């Protein structure tokens, strides 16, 4: 199973990024191999629709589960039918969230927000 975690920096010590769609990186953690890698989020600088593009990136990279503080409704519309499960992040490092998940300490993310769409 591949876990995806939005991160501020390219490191396991990094804090989880408060934003899903505009996080600079995603940590991808393969639970079978216990290996991690970091993905640059090409959606971070999008003028709009960042959540959709970021969700697409995770789907294309075969993520099974996303650990995040929050998730917008458009991103959820892509992640949910793709079978990516959403879990609520703890205010800890990326590594600590991975171990919290391994110990079944994470709760499912209960709600998605309406997004932060800006006007034109």
């Amino acid at each position, binding site marked *: 199973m591949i876990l995806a975690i939005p991160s501020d920096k390219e490191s396991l010590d990094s804090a989880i990024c408060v934003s899903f769609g505009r996080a600079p990186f995603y940590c991808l953690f393969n639970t079978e191999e216990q290996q991690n890698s970091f993905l640059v989020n090409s*959606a971070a600088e*999008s*003028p*709009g*629709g*960042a959540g*959709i*593009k970021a*969700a*697409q990136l995770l*789907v294309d990279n075969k993520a099974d589960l996303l650990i995040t503080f929050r998730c917008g409704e*458009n991103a959820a*519309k*892509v992640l949910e*039918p*793709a079978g990516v499960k959403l879990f609520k992040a703890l205010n800890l490092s990326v590594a600590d969230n991975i171990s919290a998940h391994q110990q079944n300490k994470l709760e499912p993310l209960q709600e998605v927000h309406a997004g932060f*769409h800006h*006007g*034109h």
Partner: protein
Amino acid sequence: MQASIMATDPTIAILSGKGGTGKTLLSVNLSSVAAMATYIDCDVEEPNGNLFFKPSREFEKLVTVKKPVVDETLCDGCHKCVDFCAFNALALIGKRLMIFDEICHSCGGCIYVCPQKALSESERPIGEMSIGHSGSVRCISGTMNIGESSGVPIIEALLKHKDGNLTIIDAPPGSSCLVTESIRLADFCILVAEPTIFGSHNLAMVHQLVTLLGKKHAVVLNKTLEGVNPSEEYCKKNNIPILGNIPFDKRLGKMNSEGRIAAREDAHYHKLFSAILEKALKEVSDETAADPQR
């Protein structure tokens, strides 16, 4: 009678940096004192000009935009449309293509790049528009549906119905894409400003916009009181002509809040708005003469 030099009467747009400064007040009253005018309410998110004009409804239509639809039997999940879309309006899960209509900007690019010809265009309504009359004023107004992200296509539709009469455009507040689109056809812009420091900052914002777009412009000072007016100071500092003052007056506020048109009911206001319109028209013709490109 001499032939008119100008083929059409000018188009004057009324702008301000924020809502509530008096754009609609000025637009409605200027339209009302003209012998003949077309009023276009481009504030499609919150149109309120027709609350004053209460016009007849002679023409109505839906405003639609083109959006892509996918034929799932033809789509092979190649991902090209998803990669092409600059607005991220498409997502692909396996072979299932998702289209986010409210994010789509109707560019047609996805249809163009699809190697399978699986995408085609359909019309999606995003609002409506109407045309009617109120006395000597032809009223054009549009309303965007709740939840839509951009009113620009509605403003485009409204402007297509502009005729050769003097046209007063009631622009949306601020300096967004909606405003840029609203003043595209304007020969002249009138910036309405409040007599506060906040008001002068809002004035600076729209002043920057009209300067950037190379639009001739002047200011009308609204709700003026005795004492220093930061917006007036801004005009002096930047050499912006001032067409007139609308002094703060509870009587005007009351008429306006009841949806009445002051210039139609009150001799004093008829005179005040006529003077502003006359000055504006003089500025337009002076500027037109001075600009050889026109």
